[in-house]
Each structure stands twice: as structure tokens, then as C-alpha cells.
């Protein structure tokens, strides 16, 4: 079995295992929704080397797009979701096009500033977005003959979409396009010198990432029946990024691990201690100092430590090299 099939199998196992181990269908859906968002973030961070603080923009706009369409029109659910994905892709193309004009830290700061811009945009135009209150009472219509009213049937719907998108992102990552993104990540100047249209590749990566994140945002709005302002704020971008990095940036399944860990742990801890973010902050520092390949790296080490350790099949060949920062280079 090749690596991609193994990772898809692992993702499918997660989608099947969540209902067996979790009581709340809402929480289980949330895991998969953020797994999509984190995998989309990983396409930028792990594969292209772009650390985007703007993922919350696409997530939030996806929520608003789905909410507005379902509140004000009677289009089918599928169309509303497609619209959200398109919104995410279009805005991501714009944000990407502007942000990649600068590299490295400047790029990160630009994406963060854009995320603030869209937050204040949503906050300012209260008539459209509901401002602080968010868009309320978003309906969750049936898809074809299937009613999605019950939380586990909605989970099943999310799980199917999750697996489809996961497979699609895997296809993207293993295509010539995806391989070229790795070349851009590892040495942008070389990729450009060879003759790859690096700018277009980066913008395309942004568009794909934005589409998937927008769709995830739409699914989240449907899940909770609200498109809240918090879906587009700084902390949403931050959370998606944290999930991606905690999981590990080497492969797409790592993002599923990261999202699952973040969502489940935050649910457990926040009920015990509202200030649990203190621990999360500490964990981020620990990850940066001691677990630079994230949870996936940890898993790899565990598997290798097993007596029959299958070193070759699980080892990822595309781990980003952790090397000293050379001046002026990308992230």
C-alpha cells in the first residue's frame, strides 16, 4: 500500500471511529470540519511554505456566504455550499495575490493585517453580517431525500464531504502541481530559475486552500445554526494555524490529528477550566522546542520504536527540512 492510500485509510478510520468514541455528534462534526480547514492550511504551510494568518478570513466568509444564501433565498443546500467554496476561493485569490508580493515575515504580517481588515469589514457592515451577534437562525435544509436535522446524520454528511475533500487534497498534493509546490517551498529561487511560474503556483495554492476553508466555514455555520463574528476573527486564523502546526506540516493526515487534538482537548479542558488557553500557549512553546514535527512526528517515533517498526512505509519523504533560517528567505 502506498503512503497516500495509507493516509486516506487513516482519515477514513478517524471518520468511522469518532461516532464510536464520542457522545456528541456536534463535537465530532466539529473535529472533521476543522480537520478540513487545517488540511487546507497545511497545503499552504507544509507544501508551499506560506504561513498564512488569513485562514480565518476564508472560514468566516464561507460561514457568511452559506448563512446569507440559506437565510435569504431558497436555493438547495449543495448550491449554498458551492457558493461558500467559491467565495473562499475568490477572496483567497485576492488575498494571496496581494500577500505574496512580499516574502517571509512581511508575508505573514500582510496576511494578519488582511485578517484584521476582513474582521472589521464584517464588524462594520452589521446590516449584512449581524455584527457582534452574528447571523442567527441559519436553517439546515435537507440534502436531496436526506434530512440533516439530527446531529449524527449531519455528522455523516460532514464525514462524506471530509473524505471527498481529503482525497481531493491528496490528489492535488501528489500531482505535478503539488510536487512543484514542494520545490517552491524548499528553494523558491531555484524553482523560479528552472522556469516555474512560482507566483501563479502560489496563488493557485491559495485559491484551493480558500475554497476548502470556505466550505469548512459553511459547514460550521450550518452545524451551530449561526455565522458568528468569531468565525472571521484573529483567533480563528490563529486556531486553524495552531491545529496545523500541532499536527505537523509534513502530510495532510497530520492536520486531521492536529484538529482532532485541538477540538477535543479544548472541549474537555474548557469545561473544567475556562483559562485552559494558558496551557495551550505552553504547549505551543513545547511543540516549537521539542516536537517540531508535531503530533505526526511523535507518532512516527512511536511506530519506529515498536519492535516490528515499519520504518519505510510510514516515514514521510516530504517533511519540511528544519534548517537554520537564512537571511531574507521565505518561511
Amino acid at each position, binding site marked *: 500500500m502506498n503512503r497516500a492510500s495509507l493516509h486516506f485509510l487513516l482519515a477514513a478510520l478517524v471518520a468511522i471511529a469518532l461516532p464510536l468514541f464520542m457522545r456528541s455528534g456536534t463535537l465530532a462534526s466539529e473535529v472533521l470540519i476543522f480537520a478540513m480547514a487545517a488540511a487546507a492550511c497545511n497545503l499552504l504551510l507544509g507544501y508551499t511554505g506560506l504561513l498564512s494568518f488569513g485562514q480565518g478570513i476564508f472560514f468566516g466568509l464561507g460561514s457568511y456566504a452559506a448563512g446569507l444564501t440559506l437565510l435569504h433565498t431558497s436555493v438547495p443546500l449543495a448550491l449554498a455550499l458551492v457558493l461558500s467554496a467559491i467565495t473562499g476561493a475568490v477572496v483567497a485569490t485576492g488575498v494571496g495575490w496581494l500577500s505574496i508580493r512580499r516574502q517571509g515575515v512581511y508575508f505573514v504580517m500582510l496576511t*494578519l493585517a488582511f485578517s*484584521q481588515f476582513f474582521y472589521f469589514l464584517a464588524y462594520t457592515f452589521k446590516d449584512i453580517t449581524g455584527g457582534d451577534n452574528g447571523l442567527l437562525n441559519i436553517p439546515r435544509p435537507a440534502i436531496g431525500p436526506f434530512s440533516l436535522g439530527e446531529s449524527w446524520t449531519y455528522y455523516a454528511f460532514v464525514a462524506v464531504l471530509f473524505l471527498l475533500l481529503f482525497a481531493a487534497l491528496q490528489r492535488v498534493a501528489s500531482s505535478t502541481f503539488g510536487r512543484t509546490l514542494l520545490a517552491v517551498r524548499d528553494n523558491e529561487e531555484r524553482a523560479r530559475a528552472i522556469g516555474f511560474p512560482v507566483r501563479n503556483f502560489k496563488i493557485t495554492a491559495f485559491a484551493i486552500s480558500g475554497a476548502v476553508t470556505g466550505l469548512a466555514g459553511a459547514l460550521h455555520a450550518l452545524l451551530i445554526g449561526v455565522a458568528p463574528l468569531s468565525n472571521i476573527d484573529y483567533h480563528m486564523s490563529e486556531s486553524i494555524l495552531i491545529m496545523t502546526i500541532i499536527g505537523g506540516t509534513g502530510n495532510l493526515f497530520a492536520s486531521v490529528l492536529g484538529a482532532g487534538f485541538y477540538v477535543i482537548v479544548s472541549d474537555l479542558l474548557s469545561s473544567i477550566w475556562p483559562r485552559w*488557553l494558558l496551557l495551550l500557549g*505552553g504547549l505551543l512553546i513545547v511543540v516549537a522546542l521539542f516536537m517540531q514535527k508535531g503530533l505526526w512526528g511523535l507518532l512516527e517515533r512511536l511506530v519506529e520504536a515498536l519492535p516490528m517498526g515499519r520504518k519505510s512505509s510510514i516515514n514521510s519523504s516530504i517533511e519540511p527540512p528544519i534548517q537554520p533560517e537564512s537571511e531574507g528567505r521565505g518561511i
Partner: protein
Amino acid sequence: MIYLFQLVNGIGLGMLYFLLAVGLSIIFGLLHFVNFAHGTFYLLGAYFVYDMTERGLNFWAALLVAPFIVAGLAALTESVLLRRIYHLPHTFHILVTVGLALMVQELVIILWGPVGGNVSTPGALSGVLMLGDFIYPQYRLFVIGLTLVLAIGLWWLLEGTRLGAVVRAGSESTDMVSLLGIDILRVNTAVFALGAGLAGLAGALAAPIRGVEPFMGVEALGIAFVVVVIGGMGSYTGALIAGLLVGIVQSIMTTLWPEGARLMIYLGMGLVILTMPRGLLGRA
């Protein structure tokens, strides 16, 4: 008259933004370190003043002490933790500083509660200045005056002293400076503490104007990034001009279209990036 009022307001706000952002800019120039915890120093400066005045300490004493505590904490963090990660890619700088910012924000909520509070304007400056039709709060004039003096002092420190020369040389080539026998690690810590202390002072000065709340650090971080992006990374003059520009635009906008004030700042930043990708005065 309302525009003159807002213009002066904008200058005061802009000078605070300058204090807030200049440290971020210099730290990046010297250490190539991106600090997502920079807003935290602003947050701490404001809360230290809030806490000390709540305990009955004189505002002026609090204003004097708070930035030094912030600078001390920053120096400690730099030498214990951050120094270990300079060699790692930017991703890990961001991860660690985002983690630090989260921890401090939660600590602030634990210690002082989630709501925040107000810091009363010091008695001697609680009045207004009247020049004919022009009426202006004295405290805000004091802020403008003090920040101007500090800006000049900082310029002298960077351009006219040995430390400044080392900092400027370090921005060009850290390795060369170390080869010349200068203890660059100590310079790094000093510069980091200086930048953090200035951000802390900006927070402390802003506290009587805007009050304190636990999420002001995130907001300040966004503003600092805009100032640095517009002004150009690593540029003192750029930070000054961009800080004033952002402050004045924001103030004038509060008269014209209050809801859109912060929107305009980020829009302006987008425009600068489109037309001048390096910012007003940034180097390559």
C-alpha cells in the same frame, strides 16, 4: 475646529503607535525575529499602571516603573527562552511568541478579570487647555510632548551612540559584528528589552485614554504590524511617519465615519503594499 481637534488627537495617537511599533521594527532589523508577543508588552504596560494606581500608588510613579518592569520581563524571556530559537525558521518564532501571548493574556484574565477597567487621568492633568475656541485635554498634550522627547532621545540613541552603531551594524551583518568582538547576545537582549519597554510605555500612557482590557494586546499587535508594513521593516523614520499617518487617519475618520475608522487603516496598508511593496522607507 473639529478637524483640528481630531488632527491633534491623531498626532497623539500616532506617537503612541510609533512607540508601540518602533521596537518591533528594530528587533526585526537586528534579530530577524518576528515577535507575535509584541502586543503583550503593550498589554502588560497598561495593566501594570492599572494595578498600581488601583493599589493607590501615584500615577506618575506607576508610569515610571511599569515600562521598566515590562523591559525586565522581556529581557528575562529573551535570555531564557527566545535566544534558543533564533536559529529556527520563522514558523517556530511565531509559534513560541503566539504561545507566550496566549499565556500572558490568560494570566491577565486570571489576575485582573475578563472585563478590564479604567485608569483615571492624573489630577494635575485632568483639565483642559483653552486657546480661544480650541479646547484640548491636558493629558493628551502631555502624551504628545513626552513621546516627542522620547522619539528624539531614541533617535539619538540609534544614531549618536555606540550602542546605536552596533545595532545598525548588527542589522547589516550579525556575524561580522560578533567577529569584531562585540557580545552580540547582550546587545540583542538590551535591544529586545528596549523595544518591549517602549511598547509597555505606550500601553501605560494609553491606559488613562482608552482603559484596559485583556484583548488590547491583540489589537495593538495588528496596529504595530500595519505601522511596520507601511513604514518599512527596520526603519526608525518609517515607523515614525507611518505611526503618525495611521494615528491621524484613524482620528479624522472617527469624525467622518466612526465605524469605518479601523477599516481604513487596513485598507491604507493594502494600498501602500500595492504601490510601494517595501513600505515608505524600508530596505530590501
